[in-house]
């Protein structure tokens, strides 16, 4: 670690900033149904979707419904760090705050990656994320999280 990175990490720890770009064990794929017209998504839009602030795709104008993994799932942690920029504690606080304010509900939760794939492939409004090895032939990948960073498909 060079001096600049060391300084950044120390500052991040002191100010409570999340460690963006923490390495995941396996790439995470952001998926939609094969018949969805959406082909790509950037981090801002994906964040807005998973914060339930955005309800339509910018590319098509179609309705979008985010699908989360359970909050204890390590893939969820990788996704939240890479897309929301929040560690698990801050994600929990974020949703507590949203609930108390009376804001829109948090995304629905699928119990496991296989359930995400099954739900997404059957509903073109859904967007989810799963480990890359769980992607089946009936969904398409519109973005990937590699080494803690969102990349295009």
């Amino acid at each position, binding site marked *: 670690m060079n001096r600049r990175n060391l300084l950044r990490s120390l500052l991040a*720890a002191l100010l409570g900033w999340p460690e963006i770009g923490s390495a995941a064990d396996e790439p995470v794929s952001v998926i939609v149904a094969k018949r969805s017209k959406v082909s790509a998504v950037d981090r801002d839009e994906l964040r807005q979707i998973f914060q339930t602030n955005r309800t339509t795709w910018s590319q098509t104008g179609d309705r979008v419904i985010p699908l989360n993994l359970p909050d204890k799932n390590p893939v969820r942690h990788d996704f939240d760090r890479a897309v929301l920029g929040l560690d698990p504690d801050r994600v929990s606080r974020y949703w507590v705050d949203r609930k108390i304010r009376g804001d829109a509900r948090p995304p629905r939760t699928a*119990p496991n990656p296989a359930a995400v794939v*099954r739900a997404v492939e059957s509903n073109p409004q859904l967007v989810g994320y799963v480990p890359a090895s769980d992607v089946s032939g009936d969904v398409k990948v519109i973005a990937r999280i590699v080494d803690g960073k969102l990349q295009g498909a």
Partner: protein
Amino acid sequence: MGAIVLGNTSRRRLKIISGTIVAIVAATPAFAQEAPPTVDPPAPEGARLPEAEAPPAPAPVPEAAAPEVVPAPAPPPPVPAEPSPEVQALLAAQQQKIDELEARVTEVEEQGGEVVEDKLKIYGFTDFGLQRIFAADSFSAITDTETSFVIGNLNVYFDAQPIERWRTLFEIRFTNAPNGNLVIGPTGATRTSTFQFDPHAGVWDAPMWGGYTVIERAHTDYLASQYFNVRVGNFFTPFGIWNVDHGSPVLIPVTPPQIILQSLYPIRQTGLQFYGSAFAGAWELGYALTVTNGRQELSNFDFDDDKALGGRLFARNDGDVRTQIGLSFYRGNAEDKIVSFPPTGEPTTSSSWEYDEYSIGADFSLDAGGTRIRTEALVQRQVFEPGKRQPAFGVLGALVPDGYRYSGYLVAAQQLPFLGLEPYLLLEGARLPGAVSDTLGVLSGGVNIHFTPFTQLKLQAVRVWFWNLRDDPRSAAGFPPEDLNHTILTSRLVVAF
């Protein structure tokens, strides 16, 4: 990770495969027992096939024919041959594989496979605390300053979304009020008590004390689109930061700012709200527009046809550095309604006070890692109808003048990387022309201890100063504004659920 999903069909297949493997191995000469011809060899349990896959069973022998069968005397059972080491190893390997597959099937089945969302969600927050106010005797006479444990908020949310685009949210607060409320009259103050004998207790003298349930909000939303949604009912006025954050788990300090305490706009209103947003890159540009009955301190009903209008525009970036800038406004008319029944003729209605009000405010919030900053400021213009001014607080016979009222605050908090500590500082100023003083200032500091994302202890010290900066002898009150200065020590243990 690569979880597999196996349903009943897959489990049956697995059993068939495992059963077949074991059956084949069991049928090898080195393993099979030599059994008497009239007795079927006992099959291992795992070799049983599901009914659909089982070979046709031999026709049962009718019961009447049973006595005619004379079984031959069974020869002594032979000593079973010992399976070869290769077969034993194969069996063990297969059994291990079967056990692993069974375990994965069980794991996946336990996880379930469906995406289910509750149509009705119940959640809320509670806070309890200890507080003490240090003040002059004249101030202590009109409030409770002693060290006291307090029940803060017991708020429960009922959040129903029976179908995709319709949502109803209502929030109920349970409280002991008005029990213990201090009612100040012209000659002194008395306490309100809700004591009564419990009529349902089975005895005549069981004590009970009632309390309010406060409808904090109750509205139904039609979620039409990203750009346009409709809210109908009773909602918090979308104005600034504090009134939207609303609950103790979200708010940084315990004590509310003057904007809320003085109701410089209505805290909540009944009517319609239209809201929506659009996006420009990382920024969300949103609006809210309200058409309501206006202030509802006296009644949720409107006493005239002059509807109140309000609105809010905001730009929000919920990225790594969460930032929000907002502008809010409100225009309404407030009055009371007195009905008189003269001895002759029709009943008449009138008002003893009536005013128009205009509020405009600006706010800014920032969340950068562990740093939280909130600030908002507003100006309110209050114009009374001629001859219909409200009585002013603090001086008998004084009336509230027309005028501008200003208020603003700044809160800055920093989450430290240890023990969940979040110290903060609050600065506040307000210019609120009244009979006793016209200006106040607040300096406050505190620390929030976040035990978990759902629980925190809030500790706060507050110093409040009152001044009269007017150079106007008519503003001289019966007691100096300094008598209102006070210090508050307060705490709340907050739980969100």
